[in-house]
């Protein structure tokens, strides 16, 4: 019974209802769920998914990722009869706003978005506003292969419990990219980065905070500079606490900015633009959120052969990215099929191959068959990718609250 209540996330129950009403409600929910448009068991889901078209809204700025998604489309078509259409977004919020507009208009079925590539604050907002379908991940057979203990961010996304409303897809970890043809010694900490920038004025910058990598840099610096990073794991308690905690960061940025590209008066509009500037020799050090993306970029020709990566001694921020299904998708079963396929050893292996995309797996290798384990082990690392033992510790993403307030404060100080 409990289960039924959960599956119908859009149904609301009155708090003042009498026990009899509860009974009727539960009974109706039971009826509803048996007639509902989506099945509960995996074979049932597979059956219903056949012939459905899934509109997957995902950032479309990377050629490698787009061709990977294209491959996924061919695979799910052949194996499950699901048609996958990649709606290429300039930013995830485009899709969030579309779902919101649909909810505002009262459309509860046949929404235009069936699957969405998401994490962090976008997920937090959608979940908070009841824009997501679920929980659904427990129904996906491949979900149990996920490495929950080794990769806790697959269950807690930016300190927001996932609760089965999004299925893990890939792992990300903050790192720096540099051109070894021009940089001989790389900084090992945030203060050392400042020293480096002072010696090489104009050769480093970070993206504008409207790009997630720009605000991740702020959080990365804050974690290392603030006295008590523990407070970042919870929401911001008060204005005073924010001022006290972030003071060392602003102090640091005030010293850093005069030595940035264009003296910190202008910032690259996105992480991709920043990567292009590294390729154009306008910068010597740039940022990345995927340790093997640099190898993939070298392979595809968007970074020089001499590009390499480095991390910080005390560790860097890591998180997980997911796929979620909007509450009003008309192809939920198809979307679940795709989400499940994305977590399959086959799809995860293809994705981790640096010649294709180079995005790290969310799976626990030990849970896989011997054959798959072997295949994962034989994947090439990539010329610019650090081996796992050199990637350093992984730090948790601060609570989204911090990100929002840091962005706003940064805008106030430097964004005008």
């Amino acid at each position, binding site marked *: 019974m409990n289960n039924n209540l959960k599956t119908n996330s859009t149904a609301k129950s009155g708090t003042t209802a009498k026990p009899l009403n509860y009974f009727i409600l539960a009974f109706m929910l039971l009826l509803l769920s048996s007639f509902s448009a989506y099945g509960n068991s995996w074979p049932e889901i597979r059956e219903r998914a056949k012939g459905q078209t899934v509109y997957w809204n995902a950032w*479309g*700025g*990377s050629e490698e990722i787009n061709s990977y998604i294209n491959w996924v489309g061919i695979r799910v078509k052949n194996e499950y009869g699901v048609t996958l259409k990649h709606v290429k977004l300039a930013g995830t919020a485009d899709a969030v706003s579309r779902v919101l507009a649909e909810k505002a208009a009262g459309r509860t079925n046949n929404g235009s978005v069936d699957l969405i590539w998401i994490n962090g604050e*976008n997920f937090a907002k959608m979940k908070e506003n009841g824009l997501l379908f679920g929980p659904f991940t427990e129904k996906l057979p491949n979900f149990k292969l996920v490495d929950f203990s080794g990769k806790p961010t697959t269950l807690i996304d930016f300190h927001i419990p996932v609760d089965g409303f999004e299925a893990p897809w890939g792992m990300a970890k903050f790192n720096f990219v540099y051109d070894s043809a021009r940089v001989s010694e790389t900084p090992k900490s945030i203060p050392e980065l400042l020293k480096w920038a002072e010696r090489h004025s104009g050769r480093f910058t970070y993206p504008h905070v409207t790009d997630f990598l720009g605000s991740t840099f702020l959080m990365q610096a804050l974690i290392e500079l603030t006295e008590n990073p523990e407070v970042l794991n919870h929401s911001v308690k008060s204005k005073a606490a924010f001022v006290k905690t972030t003071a060392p960061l602003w102090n640091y940025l005030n010293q850093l900015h005069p030595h940035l590209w264009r003296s910190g008066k202008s910032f690259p509009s996105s992480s991709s633009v920043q990567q292009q500037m590294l390729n154009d020799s306008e910068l010597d050090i740039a940022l990345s959120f995927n340790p093997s993306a640099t190898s993939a970029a070298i392979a595809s*020709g968007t970074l020089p052969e001499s590009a390499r990566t480095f991390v910080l001694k005390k560790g860097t921020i890591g998180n997980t990215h997911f796929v979620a299904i909007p509450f009003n998708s008309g192809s939920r079963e198809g979307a679940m099929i795709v989400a499940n396929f994305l977590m399959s050893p086959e799809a995860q292996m293809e994705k981790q191959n640096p010649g294709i995309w180079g995005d790290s797996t969310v799976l626990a290798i030990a849970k896989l068959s011997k054959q798959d384990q072997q295949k994962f082990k034989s994947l090439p690392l990539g010329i610019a990718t650090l081996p796992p033992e050199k990637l350093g510790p992984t730090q948790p993403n601060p609570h989204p609250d911090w990100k929002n307030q840091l962005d706003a404060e940064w805008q106030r100080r430097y964004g005008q």
Partner: protein
Amino acid sequence: MATTIRTVSILPAFPILTKLLFLIPIAAGLFGVLLPSLGYFPDLGGNQFHFEIFHQLLDHPALPNSVSLTLFSGISATFISLCLAILLAAMLSQDGNSGNNKNKITRFFVIVQRGLIPLIAVPHAAIALGLAFLIAPSGWIIRSLSFLVMGWETPPEWVTLQDPFGLSLIFGLVLKETPYLLLMILAALPQIRAQEYLRIGQSLGYGNFRSWLKLVLPQVYPLIRLPVFAVLAFSLSVVDVALILGPTTPPTLAVLILRWIDDPDLSFRFLASAGAVLLLVITLGSLFFWRVSEWLVLRKWRNWLTNGKRGSGNEAHNLAALSGLVLLGTAFFSVLGLAFWSLSLRWPYPHVLPQRWTSRNWERHWSSLQETAFTTLEVGVISGAIALFLVVGCLENEQWRRVKFSFRSQWLLYLPLLIPQATFLLGIQILAVRLEMDGTFLLLVWSHLLFVLPYIFLTLADPWRNLDARFPLIAQCLGASPLRILFRIKLPLLLKPLLVAAAIGFAVSVAQYLPTLFAGGGRFATLTTEAVSYAAGADRRVIGVYGFLQALFPWIALLLALAIPRWRFRNRAALS
């Protein structure tokens, strides 16, 4: 006679239908942003009307700089484009009778014109992307400089792109808007019989340029006022060009609004709506300011018009030649840069040409290109055809019923060009979702129609009205029905302007970014939406593929529009 009456009696339906097609979405769009800007958006918990959000907007730290940047870049871009268009048009309308030297000059400007006019067809985003590569500190110009003279190992630290004053943004806009205004001026010249005035001016001893300024300009300006206003409104509210060429700290108001719409914190929707209302106010204010300035300029210069001072004004030649060359060269190399990128595997700084060439970028995208190109073609052709049908109907109604399309209804047609896109598209989206119409092909075509139709009307109205009335009159006397006159007399006579209007309509449709995104519900990918989403990824090789095709498509349409009449009427000089 009976058929005549029947045909003519359905004509009034055309302007009515056209007006309805325009009024409904615009009204819906405006309501859709006005309500949230006043705090009403029930699904986000806004149930009351208040002015809090406008206070919040005006207190926003980025607002003052953003607004002044918007005003400065928008007004300067319009002013410069207009001046250059006037200068070039004046050079083009000199007659070549007075000596060999002049003939050469005229021929030079005709080449400039032939090169510039097709630019109208190239979407803004494509030109902006090409220009960005051309002028960036690691771009083509500096690479060539470095190769030839300077030998820089790393790009110089110059601010040539996304500069805080928006100069590169202004340059990009001027590059696109000058050809458009030039075409509008050239199209208006025959109506005022410019050549005859110029001859009179010359016979009175005024130089060519001077007679153009004193005799032609005062007559031609009122005819191009609407296009100038459209350019001004567009420059103030443009999104894609400002994203690529404009500064980031802060960006222009339109980009700031888009950032708020894109913010995952959904409460920013209120602020975005208020910003959109402010952008509308700024646009209307600027149009008013422009109109007042016109009046002031006229007052100040009226004496100059009639002071009787002669002089050649030939010093303008060099300036015109220089600006013509700069515009033409920049546009050519911007598009060429895109083409080169699409064929390169690696093209790092400081190489002037790609290090390694490849056809891989095209092969890789071939299958998705076909689908995207087909959608682009489909929407462009259908919306263009509907617009052409409605415009011809409205113009026929005008002639048969002898009512001129009223001033007010003409303004209605231009409203979509004068109201910032971000302002009303957001509202349309909400309404469309309510009507279960979003993401349908119908809505996509409709939203394109809002932008395609005004341009087609603008291009076709004057040739249509100026067609020698004696031709249809003779046909009528011989007993031809209105339909027969239309198909046997008018359409063939007006084939060239019809095809040019259709090509421009098609080009406008190809260039639409925000309407395709909002009305298409993300389900329709066109060359432009793909190009802009790849622009976010900054892989110039892919941008090159889409940008180049995006530029090529409308250009071919325009070429066809010019070639078909020439072939069809190869033995009738005046029609080809």
